[in-house]
């Protein structure tokens, strides 16, 4: 279907849209987990319109909902006579009045190939916390850019937050391409700029697509009628082929949610497996106490199971009386998480008060909630991509911090385990969630020293060291570095001791 033909497919004539010859979406077979995706990008770039269009073209909009949409679009119709697809997402009164998205909307749709959970997030900087909410669970991000405007600071912020939260697959939707007269050079320029940004964030998997969300070009139906120069996939084709987040790589983890004691004879530990797998007979360690036990049974409502894997909600029975309570972690004895009183993390500050140095927050990770003191170290400058020294983090800042606990904390690095490496901070004064964070490493007692095997000790002539320390790269990571000035003899002594 060509663009004008789609444009003519008015709402009350829904059959005109469904008469498209190629793809007649059928129900998903559901033999796999759904793909979780978000839309993100700056204000008004067309995120909600794009998802609305996706729902529309995959027939996820029912007749009565279409009639409501038509009624609500009245008077707000664009020159093309198309409904305001964003209204399918912007369901709050305040959003409709202002024509913006305030909070995430979750929607569900499917094609014949798979099912999808999509979170449409707001573009306004003020509501970055709601974008982060959507990003935390996503497998893929569709980042929108207005073809007329190009990349903005907010585009960079969203791309960065999405990457920090572990998203490694991006679709760059260069939207409103219809308003540039389908300008190929413009599309290529923006794609190039974004790919550079993505590379600097460590993301390799980027598909750039020229899109008109409003007209539905290259969303579900291809836009070759108006963009013969583009021969890549449509958005839905990319989504159908995307991968869900791969399984966690570390050993067995069970954050204990509650202890079940229905009678004298039964004592089980209930929780959701957050990594690895478990079977009867396995030896496990209870953290933070360090006590050891063996698994005797995995109990579920559907009889006793002979194994459980990551994601399963189970009840575990151990072979001996050990002290286990909510917030403890039962873990594989031969592949344990890190425990300690100090960790390094990256976080996004989500509330107007920002993150204050020295303030004691509640930290919740899995089922464990404990007191923490947060010491900001640096903040990401979105314009330059550099980490600058920071003593506190304002709202929406992306920062590196040190965490200091009163009691033992238990984590994996977020890169290794998205469940046991993630946490939120809660302000004890307001009870509000003020940050979302990702553990990078455990901090040893000596400031600045990180996890095993991640450090190098160099012994350099002082003048060479001074030159190195003057470079930009060094300045950006000053707080990660431990520098001692010693004489040559002392240096040899230290290094010999390590090798010895």
């Amino acid at each position, binding site marked *: 279907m060509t663009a004008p033909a789609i444009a003519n497919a008015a709402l009350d004539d829904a059959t005109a849209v469904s008469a498209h010859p190629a793809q007649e979406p059928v129900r998903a077979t*559901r*033999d*796999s*987990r759904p793909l979780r995706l978000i839309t993100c990008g700056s204000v008004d770039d067309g995120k909600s319109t794009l998802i609305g269009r996706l729902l529309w073209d995959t027939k996820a909009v*029912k007749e*009565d*909902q279409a009639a*409501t949409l038509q009624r*609500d679009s009245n008077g707000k119709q664009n020159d093309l006579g198309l409904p305001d697809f964003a209204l*399918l997402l*912007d*369901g*709050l*009164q*305040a959003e*409709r009045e202002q024509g913006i998205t305030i*909070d995430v*909307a979750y*929607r*569900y749709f499917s094609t014949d190939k798979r*099912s999808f*959970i999509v979170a449409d997030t707001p573009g306004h900087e003020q509501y970055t916390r709601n974008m*982060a909410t959507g990003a*935390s*669970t996503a497998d893929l991000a569709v980042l929108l850019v207005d073809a007329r405007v190009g990349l903005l600071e907010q585009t960079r912020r969203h791309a960065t937050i999405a990457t920090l939260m572990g998203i490694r697959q991006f679709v760059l939707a260069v939207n409103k391409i219809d308003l540039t007269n389908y300008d190929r050079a413009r599309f290529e320029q923006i794609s190039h700029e974004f790919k550079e940004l993505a590379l600097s964030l460590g993301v390799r998997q980027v598909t750039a697509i020229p899109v008109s969300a409003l007209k539905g070009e290259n969303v579900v139906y291809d836009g070759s009628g108006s963009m013969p120069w583009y021969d890549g996939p449509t958005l839905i084709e990319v989504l159908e082929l995307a991968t869900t987040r791969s399984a966690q790589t570390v050993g*067995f983890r069970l954050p204990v*949610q*509650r202890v*079940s004691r*229905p009678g004298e004879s*039964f004592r089980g530990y209930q929780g*959701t497996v957050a990594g690895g*797998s478990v*079977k009867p007979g*396995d030896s496990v360690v209870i953290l933070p106490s360090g006590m050891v036990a063996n698994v005797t049974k995995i*109990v*579920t*409502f*559907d*009889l*006793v*199971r*002979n*194994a459980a*894997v990551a*994601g399963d*909600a189970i*009840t575990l029975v151990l072979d001996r009386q050990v002290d286990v309570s909510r917030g403890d972690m039962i873990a*594989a004895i031969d592949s344990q998480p890190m425990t300690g009183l100090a960790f390094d993390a990256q976080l996004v500050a*989500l509330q107007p008060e920002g993150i204050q140095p020295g303030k004691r927050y509640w930290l*919740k990770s*899995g*089922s464990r909630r404990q007191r923490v003191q947060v010491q900001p170290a640096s903040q990401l400058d979105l314009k330059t991509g550099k980490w600058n020294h920071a003593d506190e983090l304002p709202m929406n800042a992306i920062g590196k911090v040190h965490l200091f606990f009163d009691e033992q904390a238990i984590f994996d690095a977020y890169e290794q385990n*998205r*469940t046991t490496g*993630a*946490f*939120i901070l809660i302000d004890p004064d307001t*009870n509000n*969630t003020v940050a979302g964070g990702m553990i990078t490493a455990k901090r040893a007692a000596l400031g600045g020293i990180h996890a095993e095997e991640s450090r190098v000790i160099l012994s350099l002539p002082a003048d060479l060291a001074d030159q190195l320390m003057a470079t930009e790269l060094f300045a950006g990571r000053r707080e990660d570095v431990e520098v001692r000035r010693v004489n040559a003899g002392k240096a040899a002594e230290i290094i010999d001791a390590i090798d010895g």
Partner: protein
Amino acid sequence: MPHNLPETELHNPQSTKPPLDPHLKALENEAIHIFREVAAEFERPVMLYSIGKDSSVLLHLARKAFYPGRVPFPLLHIDTGWKFQEMIAFRDEMVEKYDLDLVVHTNPRGAAENVTPFSHGSALYTDIMKTEALRQALDAGQYDAAFGGARRDEEASRAKERIYSFRTPDHRWDPRNQRPELWNIYNGMIRKGESVRAFPLSNWTEVDIWRYIQAEEIPIVPLYFAKKRPIVERDGMMILAEDPRLELLPGEAKREEVIRFRTLGCFPLTGAIRSGATTLNDIISELETATVSERQGRAIDRDQSGSMEKKKREGYF
């Protein structure tokens, strides 16, 4: 110690039911996780039980979550006095069969003033007999957390709601200022008087509910299955005509039709659909080709766009 067990070996050979498909399994796991988290973090949780299909799934999941223990909180039914008779019978049967604690509440003011859907109109009636009644019951029980079976795919303002949805002491929802909710880490910290509504079925769709009911053999109210029933047509809806309190208006006539219900609420406000679906298989295939959404049959949702949000802000579930 990764075991890399093949998928099939993970299932107990003694179990008669085939394993759930991964999609439903993931939804079930998520719901159980939420149930356990709320039960552990709050002092006085309660589960809203409306007797419909979503409530039936919710109850089944609660039983699974706390097995081999009992469901560690009561069920709360807000009885408007205008529910389908079969719903009340079904409710009492479930309570008996599964050894549950049930609290039933009817708004005494509404009952005294004889507030009915006929005399007061659907909006005011819902406000008094459902929203106000719910607030009364939650206050009386001093519940600090209430489970509900709402799904995000039901309606545009629901699509915006968190899994832990914070409420002020007067039960208000502020959709513009929801707490961020990252990963599956839920913030259950509240002050005295405040509460949280928890929605374990947030990410389920209507088809998921039916497919799960089928896979898990969950009992539901028979009104969901097609049968010849007496009806009367009113305001473009087919209303069940078996309760003697339903007075026929001039020009109305009772007749029999093969019908069923896609959602269940108060009988005078719930429209039936013409359907021959007598089995779960029939219902699922009917749904997969359905061209209208499930809330279409509900009078209270049709008043205006945003009417659900308005009701929710005031404390409706």
